[in-house]
């Protein structure tokens, strides 16, 4: 009797519909597109700034259009989802051993939120919000 194993191929473009956990993974990955798009926008902002007061004023005016505000809301939601899913994943990637015990995962994730909040406040401070 010879072996005749059955090979079951994984559909390369629709595999993530097979399980909710794959959809959650893909949604986390897709948020990267929004983050990337916002980085491109910031590069345009920098180019406008380098171009002088007039191009920069035009850039700021463009940011206030309804389409731009909708884009910012979408990016903000995506960035929140991106950040929280990755912060929650940090406790998987970082195992910090202290003596004969590991630091609890919630402490590692919590520390990331604290650092995020502090950095956000510092950046808002630089931006002159306070």
């Amino acid at each position: 009797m010879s072996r005749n194993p059955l090979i079951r191929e994984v559909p390369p473009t629709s595999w993530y519909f097979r399980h909710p956990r794959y959809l959650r993974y893909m949604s986390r990955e897709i948020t990267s597109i929004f983050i990337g798009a916002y980085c491109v926008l910031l590069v345009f902002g920098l180019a406008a700034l380098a171009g002088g007061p007039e191009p920069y004023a035009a850039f700021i005016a463009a940011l206030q259009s309804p389409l731009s505000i909708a884009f910012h809301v979408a990016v903000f939601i995506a960035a929140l989802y991106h950040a929280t899913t990755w912060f929650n994943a940090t406790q998987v990637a970082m195992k910090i051993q202290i003596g004969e015990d590991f630091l609890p995962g919630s402490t590692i994730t919590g520390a990331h939120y604290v650092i995020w909040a502090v950095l956000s406040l510092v950046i808002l401070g630089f931006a002159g919000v306070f």
Partner: protein
Amino acid sequence: MKERLVQLEVFRYNPDTDRQPSYQRYEVSCLEEWVVLDALNKVKETLDPTLNYRWSCHMAVCGSCGMMINGEPRLACHTFLRDYPGVIRIEPLVHFPVERDLITAPDDFMAKLKRVKPYIIRKQKQPLEAGEYKQTPRELLRYRQYAMCINCTLCYAACPEYGLTKHFIGPAAIALAHRYNQDSRDQGRDERQEVIATKEGVWECTFVGACSEVCPVHVDPASALQQVKIASSFDWIKEHLLPGGGK
């Protein structure tokens, strides 16, 4: 003890006669306390002796009875019927070739496991009179979790990267390599890094995390893979950015 008529829809494939698999429905009376493996055993004993599947210990130790149960990679001996009120669909682990019915061929995993050298490597062995290699509880804790792997390959069935990219060494083998890298008695990290710190090693992993979700013994392979990525990145920084190549 409460009895229940359990309906199983079981994947069938006979390599001698079938070109495509089929599903066969069985109805079998089971106790509510039973696990899926008990139901399969009753089917084989009372209804259909031709049904093929692997099992051995019946206590989540041997890792033989891995199968897809309602689309989820699980050990049949560790899956209680009481948690499955409807028809239970049972299929062989995905991402592996099917030999017959619920039996898959683990050859690819076994070859990869061998490649990562999952054993203690010493550059220089101590003479016998030097005594045993001692280890503190603290040193043991560094790798103990990863030593719990039972090679059941559920993590390979859960990992979409492995399903799509067959050269990926995969979760369990890399987690076991990490287990030995973390062992204070071992000196073989450099040899293993050549296999796991590569494109077909950890850098193929995109951190879906499914391996850790399905692991029946909480090895958390995703954790091992991310730690190998971090350590390998530090290796690269030392080699390329520090004076003297970090030596």
